[in-house]
């Protein structure tokens, strides 16, 4: 344990780290969703390393920024962190973060992933896990779901609806006990009636393959927009398939969600209705849906929100008394984002399940997050409990890093 003001940010490194769906060095293609082209063969983490003069390093994934802006712009925005000590960013009392400093609120709002690295650093400096800066641990394990089952039938057309089932079986073999299926084929890539039929066939095929004990989540990325008639057909079609949640079946709006809830209640009453990747709290359509009882769980993005803003939202929901759950979106988050999600889930009562893009990296060591029977253990080591394999980094990745000092 040490005084936070003795740790001054000295260097920041941003480094692209590629990996593959499945395993480092080899992978599989993750296909379309209802609106976008193939997700691709691999993913990348924009590894953010913030290092202090005391030799501590906090980690995060800067991909949310790199999805939108250039490295040069990010460089300019982050260089203001240099020279500031760890005591300046948050008010901390009794080992808990209680507020963000007004000086840094805008930066944290814009780049929630920076707060993840800061929590990692502060946790290391105080010799406590990152989660403990938010509250008491409410669970020792966090369940994850395989979120990489896209329109695999268009990637492997000969298999048709069974393509997703084949890959779901592989996920179960590797340990997951929950899988999410991308649906919404009527939206763009299929003739709408045929797309609805295929969506139902995919859920049927996966359920038949994985058995009754595995959670099946579905996500249409708003692919039923403008086709509520087909959405009703779909909800009716999955009535006996025990779907755990339906996500983004249509773009959020009250009238459509009232119909969706009506059909859900009628055909598959135990299925949750979830939405809200773009949520930032009150004064949003999501909050209105929550107030009207039309949403069972919301899904702001873990790395966009960061620990603190997400925690504020969770507290706000708790105090509001609405029975809505929290299931952070985390698809682009790769290794470090998933670990942040697990830390957040460890202290958040209403947390449901962690989105896992199933990427593995040679570069990271995070043995405390053991994965057994579909659940990640919550490590009690300081900070984010992840370290970088320095030899590998020096040999392969350092030549690609951008240093801010």
């Amino acid at each position, binding site marked *: 344990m040490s005084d936070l003001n003795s740790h001054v940010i000295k260097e920041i490194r941003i480094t692209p780290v590629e990996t593959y769906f499945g395993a480092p060095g080899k992978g599989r293609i993750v296909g379309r969703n209802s609106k976008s*082209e193939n997700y691709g063969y691999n993913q990348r983490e924009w590894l953010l390393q913030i290092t202090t003069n005391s030799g501590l390093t906090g980690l995060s994934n800067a991909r949310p920024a790199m999805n939108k802006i250039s490295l040069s712009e990010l460089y300019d925005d982050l260089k203001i962190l240099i020279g500031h000590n760890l005591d300046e960013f948050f008010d901390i009392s009794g080992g808990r973060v209680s507020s963000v400093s007004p000086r840094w609120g805008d930066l944290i709002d814009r780049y929630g992933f920076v707060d993840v690295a800061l929590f990692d650093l502060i946790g290391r400096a105080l010799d406590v896990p990152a989660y403990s800066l938010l509250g008491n641990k409410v669970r020792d394990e966090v369940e994850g779901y395989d979120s990489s089952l896209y329109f695999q039938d268009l990637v492997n057309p000969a298999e048709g609806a069974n393509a997703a089932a084949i890959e779901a079986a592989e996920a179960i073999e590797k340990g997951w006990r929950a899988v999410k299926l991308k649906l919404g084929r009527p939206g763009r890539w299929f003739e709408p009636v045929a797309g609805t039929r295929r969506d139902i066939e995919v859920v049927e095929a996966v359920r038949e393959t994985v058995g009754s004990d595995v959670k099946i989540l579905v996500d249409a990325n708003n692919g039923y927009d403008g086709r509520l008639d087909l959405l009703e057909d779909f909800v009716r079609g999955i009535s006996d398939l025990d779907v755990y949640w339906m996500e983004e079946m249509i773009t959020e709006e009250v009238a459509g969600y009232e119909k969706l809830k009506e059909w859900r209640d009628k055909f598959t009453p135990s299925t949750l209705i979830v939405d809200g990747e773009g949520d930032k709290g009150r004064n949003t359509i999501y909050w209105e849906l929550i107030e009207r009882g039309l949403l069972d769980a919301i899904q702001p993005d873990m790395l966009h929100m960061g620990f603190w803003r997400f925690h504020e939202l969770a507290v706000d929901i708790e105090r509001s008394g609405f029975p809505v759950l929290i299931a952070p979106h985390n698809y682009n988050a790769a290794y470090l984002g998933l670990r942040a999600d697990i830390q957040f889930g460890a202290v958040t009562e209403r947390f449901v399940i962690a989105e896992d893009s199933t990427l593995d990296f040679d570069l990271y060591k995070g043995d405390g997050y053991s994965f057994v029977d579909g659940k990640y253990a919550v490590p009690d080591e300081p900070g984010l409990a992840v370290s970088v394999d320095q030899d590998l980094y020096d040999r392969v990745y350092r030549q690609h890093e951008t240093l801010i000092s």
Partner: protein
Amino acid sequence: MPEIIESVSLTPVPSSYQKELGKNAYADNRGTQWLEWVVRARSSSGAEGITIANRMMRQTSVEKTLEFIEGALLGREVESLLETSDGVVTGAAPGMDRWYRHNGWLSILSFDLLGKTRGVSAIDLLGGKVRDAVPAYDTTLYFQDFLNPVKGAQQVGDEAGKAVEDGWRAVKIKTGRGGRWMMPEAGMQRDIDVVLSVRDAVGPDVKIYVDANFGYDNHLDLLDQFIKEVTPADIFWFEEMITQDLDGYKAMREMLAKHGSNALLTCGEVDRTPISEIFQDLIDDELIDGYQPDIVSHGYLGWMDIERKLKNTNVRTIPHNFGNGSFGSYASICFGAASETYVSLEDERIIPHYLTDLPSFSNGAYSLPTGAGLGVDIDEAGFAPHTKHENKLEVTK
């Protein structure tokens, strides 16, 4: 009996690259696979015209594209697709212009089907062959140094060397790393290292094209240094180094002169309504040497019109072809065979799978197809796995 188009279909067919393709200056990894939205139109005698509707599918849905194809083709006489004179297409047939205007890809199907029903090559319909082979360049050298970080710039050099081993005599290198994914100066230095590594790998006789996808926008100082450093590597053309702009292109001309480079300046892939004003200005002021609207998006009619407009200039025909898959290669070969100023086919080197074989490839060039139409048909065995996703419409009899 007139030849009537009796059925049309739209089918997504995945195409695979020979390897994974990485980023360019602005877009994330391309990946290993892309879709071709294959359109088939079958006439009464069983002749079949082919094209791809990728351009339309980028903007809309299967439902809307099917509606469009149905309206444009189903029940129409094949001879009513195009106007011809002395066996050469002169334009759209009456009533067809509105279908081709923003969807030039449809005109390629019309050339194919008309050629097949008449028993003539699309090359002849385009005016006849002006060369016996169409040169091609490997366009798959993306930011491979990111994908395979161990080797850095050398990774691109190694892949270029492999392309030459495979028979290519021209390669295009994606540059502009400082535009988004690297810091500007570090990106320029990597770009230089990559180009020099490629030249070293391919030897002196292979053409090198460089394409920055506007990655040097707002960094003319770095572009000047880049051109200076890579000029000894004998660059054949510089493509989209900056966004189209008269002052910027004048500055580039001066850079080339200052550093003793004979490279061409090319651009135009982003021109959706060729030839739009800024590109016409660049052409009139002799600031570009090659013009690059997409071959499939604008189709044969669109490109015939472009070439008419370029006729009294020194600007060469270099159609963009990336994203057009196997079909795009066939379409480009036929067009290149009949174009006086055509330079080189942009070849994605898609692994063949659903079309009958490409013409033979030797010494970096494709021979010309000999069959009617585009000289290509659907390989039904290869296509069979994809029929599961076929969307087909037929004339009601």
